[in-house]
């Protein structure tokens, strides 16, 4: 598959600080999740592939062309920035029309494209209100609208679900999936693994300025599952549960967690452990009120991958 976005041995420093270090990656069309904890370098990578900054070394190409200082290419690219910044005095509709005007479209075309984008993000009703009066979720949606209003081939979304309500999140996730299915190239940056999993199986993980994993999220999950998992179980009889769990060979250690009010288990086989737990609880009359996998978060994933 021909890559739409190519980063070739690119590094970027901010003075003494490394933003990204010798990164090479090629992204095809469809949706790619760009994952990384805060400060991992994903914002730098996103700024490079959107042409906001140029690499200190290496190359960055989008749709076969260098992206830095290439204004015509910007007509084919849409970007939803993370920062909550707007021309607050404008209405949502005027904001979109104003930015569409920068593509040189006629006023009639700007109006039509803005209306269409507002419909896509379900913002028609609030379109003629000033952005200053919008909620965080509405501001997020209008940012997404300006990124897609000119019908770009490549869409970059930086933390697009931040501040959205559950309905808005679901709607936006659905939109991203549809854009990917329609053949667009969508790169979504996030620091929340399950958000990205809902959009795409293809992910790119960044940590400390490097790509630490690339590929199918399920493969990465399998990789994670090979490492010991820590699972916290809240129950009414922690001592009994701990004793019974120790009988199983896939349980590596058990620790009482006073502050969490339960038992913390380390297991090398989380899949097998999860299937056995209900049986143990039922057999011994233990009432389990919560199960929390402490490793099911992005930082833990990175800890595993860079270990």
């Amino acid at each position: 598959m021909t890559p739409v976005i190519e980063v070739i041995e690119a590094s970027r420093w901010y003075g003494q600080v490394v933003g990204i270090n010798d990164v090479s990656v090629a992204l095809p069309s469809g949706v790619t999740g760009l994952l990384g904890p805060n400060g991992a370098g994903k914002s730098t990578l996103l700024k490079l592939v959107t042409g906001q900054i140029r690499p200190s070394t290496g190359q960055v190409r989008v749709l076969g062309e260098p992206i830095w200082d290439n204004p015509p290419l910007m007509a084919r690219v849409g970007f939803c920035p993370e920062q909550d910044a707007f021309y607050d005095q404008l209405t949502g509709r005027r904001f979109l029309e104003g930015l569409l005007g920068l593509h040189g479209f006629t006023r009639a075309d700007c109006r039509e494209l803005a209306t269409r984008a507002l419909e896509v993000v379900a913002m028609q009703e609030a379109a003629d209100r000033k952005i200053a009066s919008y909620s965080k979720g509405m501001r997020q949606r209008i940012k997404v609208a300006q990124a897609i209003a000119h019908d770009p081939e490549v869409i970059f979304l930086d933390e697009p679900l931040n501040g959205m309500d559950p309905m808005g999140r679901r709607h936006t996730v659905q939109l991203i999936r549809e854009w990917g299915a329609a053949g667009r190239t969508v790169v979504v940056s996030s620091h929340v693994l399950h958000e990205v999993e809902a959009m795409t199986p293809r992910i790119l993980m960044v940590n400390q300025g490097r790509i630490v994993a690339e590929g199918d999220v399920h493969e990465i999950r399998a990789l994670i599952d090979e490492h010991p998992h820590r699972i916290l179980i809240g129950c009414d009889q922690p001592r009994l549960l701990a004793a019974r769990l120790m009988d199983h060979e896939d349980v590596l250690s058990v620790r009482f967690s006073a502050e969490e009010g339960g038992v913390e288990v380390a297991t090398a086989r989380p899949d097998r452990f999860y299937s056995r737990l209900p049986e143990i609880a039922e057999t011994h009359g233990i009432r389990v009120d919560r199960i929390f996998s402490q490793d099911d978060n992005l930082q833990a994933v990175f800890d595993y991958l860079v270990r």
Partner: protein
Amino acid sequence: MAQLALGPPSARMLAVIRLTIRQVLATRTTLVFALLAALPPALAVLFAVVRKVPTLHINATGFDVFSFFMVTYYLHVLLVVIALFYATALIHSEVEEKTITYLLLRPVPKPHLLLAKYLTYLMAAAAILAPSILLSFGVFELSDGAHGYAGHLRYLLWDLGVMALGVMAYGAVFVFLGTWLKRPVMVGLFFAVVWEWAITYVPGYFGKLTILHYLLSIFPHSTVQRGVQTLFGSTTSRPMAIMVLLLIATVFLGLAMETFRRSEYVLEQ
């Protein structure tokens, strides 16, 4: 998917101008400038009323007072203040407000973007200064009974020309500072107050390093500075002054465009 056809560069620049005008109109700065510009016409009306009071023996004509306002207020204060706060903000406010990303990720070359913003600044400055000057002139002339109106019209046209050149030259310098520096207003203020005002009145050739020197060289009204220049033989002819002002505007605008083209705006999250 079908790619939408891009409009011509002129249409894209016009869109930048429209967007910038909306921003400029929404700022408190514009309101303050409008109030500052309303001051001379208001004082002109006051002058017209006061000189009719028989017990007050005012010898100065309306045109004399208008000349005084042109030198002390329009040229030395309002022109510089408008240029400083508008032109430095053209790019800098977009960076401060973090809206620059929306502009840079569009098919508008950065130099065109800056040029369109500079043109908007020229329009905004003209929209504030020209009505104020015209109105002041009209009221002061009426207070004189409009006897020398036709003869003074020549001065008015020169005044408008001087202000236009001043707006262009100062604007280019300040827009350059706005693209180059993180704190352009502070440096601009230093340039406007210390450099422009102080150096202009230093006898000798130092004055030629200021924009104000060239503006005063083509200024139609008599000024203290012109007297000092003549005394020390450091005057500049009108054609030369006009050329230098146009050159300053062109060079600094070019520098601003190139600086902006090369700049990266890495916004803090």
